[in-house]
């Protein structure tokens, strides 16, 4: 790998943050001040909780923006009408249980935002899975009247397998659902930007896109509109970009990334086919991320075996624990040559 191509964690996080801020701005345009409040609560609670956890664990907090990303991601996955206490509980769970309980940033085995969302969705299903319409007037108070709420576009689409939605509306995310996960057009631009910046794995993303696209194409009798609805519903596209391709949980080797993409797509297909759950992508991320870590270990031991045979790993006379150690030794060997 060229040294110019190696991106630092901070650089990846900054790219993610920029894209998430743009999507958050779009959510604010759609849902007004209520979106600002919900995103503010998740982000604020994530940052404060992360700071407290870092201090309690005697960890350095400089240049730490991962909590900001988790908070923004979590906020965008929420309904605009979610009570603030539910948003805050999701944020606390994401940081304390899904992040710091596993050793903090870089050691997570689940995507923190996905874990936080799932926990809250199980605690408050009525609040988390009912949504106001875009551009509707949502009061800023914590609890919103259920009169202005309805089930999501996803749940309607799952039941009827069709939707009364124009192509334009599907592209710009003008339907009831989570605040920031339905903007297909914006998601596509974000995906291209992040892949060009090498902040998101193109291998994983395109593997997932191809497999899920093929599944939707045949499931909905080759109806392209339904394929589009499929990707815009259930946080799928959002989950593919921001959750499954999260750099802290994604495998480090190319082959592992490809298999990880296959596993993620398979999980989504299974959930979509055999359950009525709205957010299959979230469950798929939670299941596939620990598998991704195991894939890395397997790929590592396989790479060790091959490289030892080739004589590239002269210095590695003990089993390596992390893929970065193998890459480091390979790089040193090449420099020596």
């Amino acid at each position: 790998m060229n040294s110019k191509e190696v991106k630092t964690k901070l650089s990846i996080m900054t790219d993610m943050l920029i894209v998430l801020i743009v999507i958050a701005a779009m959510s604010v345009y759609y849902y007004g001040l209520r979106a600002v409040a919900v995103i503010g609560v998740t982000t604020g609670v994530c940052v404060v909780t992360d700071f407290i956890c870092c201090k309690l664990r005697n960890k350095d907090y400089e240049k730490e923006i991962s909590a900001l990303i988790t908070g923004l991601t979590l906020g965008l996955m929420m309904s605009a009408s979610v009570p603030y206490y539910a948003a805050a509980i999701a944020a606390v769970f994401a940081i304390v249980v899904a992040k710091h309980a596993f050793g903090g940033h870089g050691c997570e085995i689940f995507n923190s935002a996905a874990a936080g969302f799932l926990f809250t969705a199980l605690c408050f299903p009525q609040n988390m899975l009912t949504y106001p319409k875009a551009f509707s007037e949502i009061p800023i108070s914590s609890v919103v009247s259920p009169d202005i709420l309805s089930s999501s576009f996803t749940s309607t689409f799952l039941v009827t397998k069709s939707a009364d939605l124009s192509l334009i509306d599907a592209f710009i995310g003008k339907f009831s659902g989570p605040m920031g996960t339905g903007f297909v057009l914006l998601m596509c631009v974000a995906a291209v930007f992040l892949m060009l910046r090498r902040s998101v794995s193109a291998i994983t993303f395109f593997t997932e896109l191809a497999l899920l696209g093929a599944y939707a194409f045949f499931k909905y009798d080759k109806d392209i509109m339904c394929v589009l609805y499929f990707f815009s519903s259930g946080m799928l596209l959002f989950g593919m970009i921001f959750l499954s391709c999260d750099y802290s949980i994604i495998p480090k080797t190319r082959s592992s990334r490809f298999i990880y993409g296959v596993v993620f797509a398979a999980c989504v297909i299974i959930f979509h086919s055999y359950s009525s759950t709205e957010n299959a992508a979230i469950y798929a991320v939670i299941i596939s991320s620990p598998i991704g870590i195991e894939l890395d270990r397997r790929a590592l031991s396989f790479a060790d075996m091959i490289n030892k045979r080739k004589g590239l790993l002269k210095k590695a006379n003990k089993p390596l624990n992390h893929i970065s150690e193998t890459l480091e030794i390979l790089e040193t060997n090449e420099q020596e040559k």
Partner: protein
Amino acid sequence: MANDNSCKGIIKNALLNKNPILVSGMVIAPVVVMANNFWDAVTLIAAFSLITFFTLLISSFVPKNIVYTIRIILYTLIGALVYVPSVIMLKYLMPDEVETLGIFFPLFITSSFIISRSESIFFMETKGKMLLDIIFCIIGYDAAVLLFAAVREILAFGTIGGTIIGMPVQLSAFQNPFGGFILLGLMAALFRSILLFVKRLRQK
């Protein structure tokens, strides 16, 4: 600090340093599934304490010259024998509650206390110390289960022992086994960090 082999050391280890649930993580499946509230926990610990204490007590008389595999089979056989009067007694005292235990009640016969800890710890000690160790291990287990169930009931239902305490938010996810595992994990981590903190304070 008390010697580990002294009575004080044994009690301290059984209750705190090697607490069966919060430190050793033993017999946690029935706890995360069944201990949803305080009264369910009371039933659970009654069943566990009866079966474990009498099974271990009787099993300690099994001669050591019998082959290990046969000894383990004998322990579970003794457990099965102890189970019969235990279930009769508990069904008399708390008939409805015992029904809720379901399969977990007979499964206590094969708990790791009886299968593994008996051979590795309890039966290595003298009879008096063994008895002390078993009693305080059971007390340690029971106390941890009661604490866990009380916290879980407060968080998941907003009640304690069925009495409403006016919690503003109820986290229903803790009613599920997965929520129970998470809560137990968090409590174990907290318990260990408190133990570590106290140990550091004493060292200073």
